[in-house]
């Protein structure tokens, strides 16, 4: 097991290296250099270009530019073009804003998708199955911002739920209890809206996974020995159907950045996705670069975690590994 973990970690480290090179070269994809990206912009003054050239060491060869970037990133010296704040500090503050939204949305997705998917699989072909299937596809197919705007139009008048920002302006002097409640109240709609798409996808996946398992011999055996239907479904079938979901944890983390751009933009939520969007608008390359890199590293960490978890929960994987390793 230790050898397995060690080997996986080493593999991931090599990947991190390649990822960092790729992330760095994404910026050089643009024709010309970063400093020339927006020559028509009257706000790009010569001193700005000089600043960019210096910060990116653009006169150095490409591999040296990469080395400088890694050095600055590691020492925390990397500064944003826009306000000369350290990039890592900026990202960390925005990360703290994104985190509650991310946690709420993830909890919603996982707690609602499972019952829906399991019920749909049990009643395969029935009205419930067909209607949830159709609803799930509709949610997958609707542009996120279109649905969000409709919901905003509807809920704001009806329930008075706030849909802008993460707290009410001017609440700083209120008692901590009210501030907390205000923040939670602000979380409701944004987390619900960003959860809907994931919920639809996950419930479909749960359904097909359950269908796969329900046809297996051990489920028939459980029924044959006279176990109650609930026991058959939740103890015998569900446990086995759960296995593949362990691997999905790995792909949750990057959603923190990539999946949230549109929703944070809609709800004016000052989180990571919005930071990325603002950085792109301002052509703040150190921030864009670092965000892409951090997202990729988070994914790698997530897949590492899920590989280890998978080996822990599924003995077949472990023995298979001992066989060839």
């Amino acid at each position: 097991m230790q050898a397995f973990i060690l080997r996986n970690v080493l593999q991931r480290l090599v990947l991190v290296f390649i990822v960092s090179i790729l992330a760095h070269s994404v910026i050089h994809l643009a024709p010309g250099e970063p400093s020339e990206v927006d020559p028509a912009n009257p706000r790009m003054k010569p001193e700005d270009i000089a600043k960019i050239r210096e910060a990116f060491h653009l006169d150095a060869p490409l591999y040296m530019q990469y080395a400088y970037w890694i050095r600055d990133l590691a020492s925390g010296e990397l500064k944003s073009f826009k306000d000369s704040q350290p990039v890592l500090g900026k990202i960390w503050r925005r990360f703290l804003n994104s985190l509650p939204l991310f946690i709420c949305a993830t909890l919603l997705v996982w707690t609602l998708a499972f019952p829906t998917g399991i019920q749909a699989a049990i009643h395969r072909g029935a009205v419930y199955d067909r209607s949830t299937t159709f609803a799930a596809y509709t949610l997958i197919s609707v542009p996120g911002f279109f649905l969000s705007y409709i919901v905003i139009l509807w809920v704001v008048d009806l329930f008075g739920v706030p849909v802008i920002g993460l707290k009410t302006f001017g609440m700083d002097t209120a008692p901590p209890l009210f501030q907390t409640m205000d923040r939670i109240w602000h979380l409701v709609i944004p987390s619900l809206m960003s959860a809907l798409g994931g919920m639809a996808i996950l419930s479909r996946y749960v359904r097909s996974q359950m269908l796969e398992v329900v046809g297996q011999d051990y489920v028939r055996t459980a029924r044959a020995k006279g176990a109650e239907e609930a026991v058959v479904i939740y103890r015998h079938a569900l446990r086995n159907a759960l296995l593949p979901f362990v691997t999905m944890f790995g792909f949750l983390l990057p959603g923190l950045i990539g999946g949230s751009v549109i929703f944070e933009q809609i709800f004016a939520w000052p989180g990571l996705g919005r930071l990325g969007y603002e950085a792109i608008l301002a052509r703040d390359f150190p921030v864009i670069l670092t965000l892409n890199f951090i997202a990729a590293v988070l994914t790698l960490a997530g897949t590492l975690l899920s590989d280890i978890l998978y080996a822990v929960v599924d003995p077949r994987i472990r023995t298979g590994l001992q066989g060839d390793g």
Partner: protein
Amino acid sequence: MEHVSDLTKDPRQSGEELPPSETPWQESLRLFRKDRLAVAGAYVLVLLLFTAVFGKVLTEWVVVFDPEVVRLPEKFLPPLTFSSIDEVPAHDQPVGGIYLLGTDELGRDVFARMLQGSFVSLSIGFIAVGISLAIGIVLGGLSGFYGNVRLGLVTVDTLIMRFTDVMLCFPTFFLILTVVALLPPSIYNIMIVIGLTSWMGTARFVRAEFLALRKQDFVVAATSVGARDRRVIFAHMVPNAIAPVLVSATIGVATAILTESGLSFLGFGVQPPYATWGNILADGKGFIFDAPWLFFIPGMAILVVVLAFNLVGEGLREALNPKLRRR
């Protein structure tokens, strides 16, 4: 019924196996037809294809519906409003003098813009998916067929699959946004970037499919009678690996159309003069109270079309999957 009469005529055949009554494709088609949602989706897609082709012809080649005529006196007219001859000169009148889907903030005919946009949106989806399929099939196929070939220290398989892993690490939408924002705005860049960032799934399952197929008897037989690699791959393996590719292509088009609308929402979508459903919707969100049709018409159109693609894709997945069929 025929078989029964055959049996009574020739009792010697009773012990032999009957020939399959339908080919696998016919069986898939029959299964697909049973899925009513998927069939409905297929009809929508056929309709869309016609709309897109007619849209291209009637808005650009033979300009019947002109999406670019600006009629400022008649802006923000609701759907099914007649154009007034006093305010708009005859040559700027819409067909039949009626705005089927209303007009936008510049008095442009929304129906004509949607027609034009249907072709653009669809071609973004098709070209992006074409690029991603080409990359995915080539890399996945190489990895699955020539995976054991060594290039110096590493095998082809390691090289390609590690690269796929690396690409999977990046948050796709943010990566697309980054690249699209850095490149000069162009509709082709959007197609290419969406294609270049979405091939990983295809590569992975084409590889898996090839690895499984390589051990199948018919491939081993073809190899052992001395067929060249090219023949083995294209005549024997590709046709058998095509089903999942078809499914992911269908769903890929849906995803590409949604990605384009997301990019439009953030202001990095297809730029004027091209109208796409995504940017009509994104522009329409500013007039959601004054002219709700500018928001709801493109939004519902995208929803219906993407839904149709997804339902057809899912119907194909069920119909082409031999594992599900036997149950």
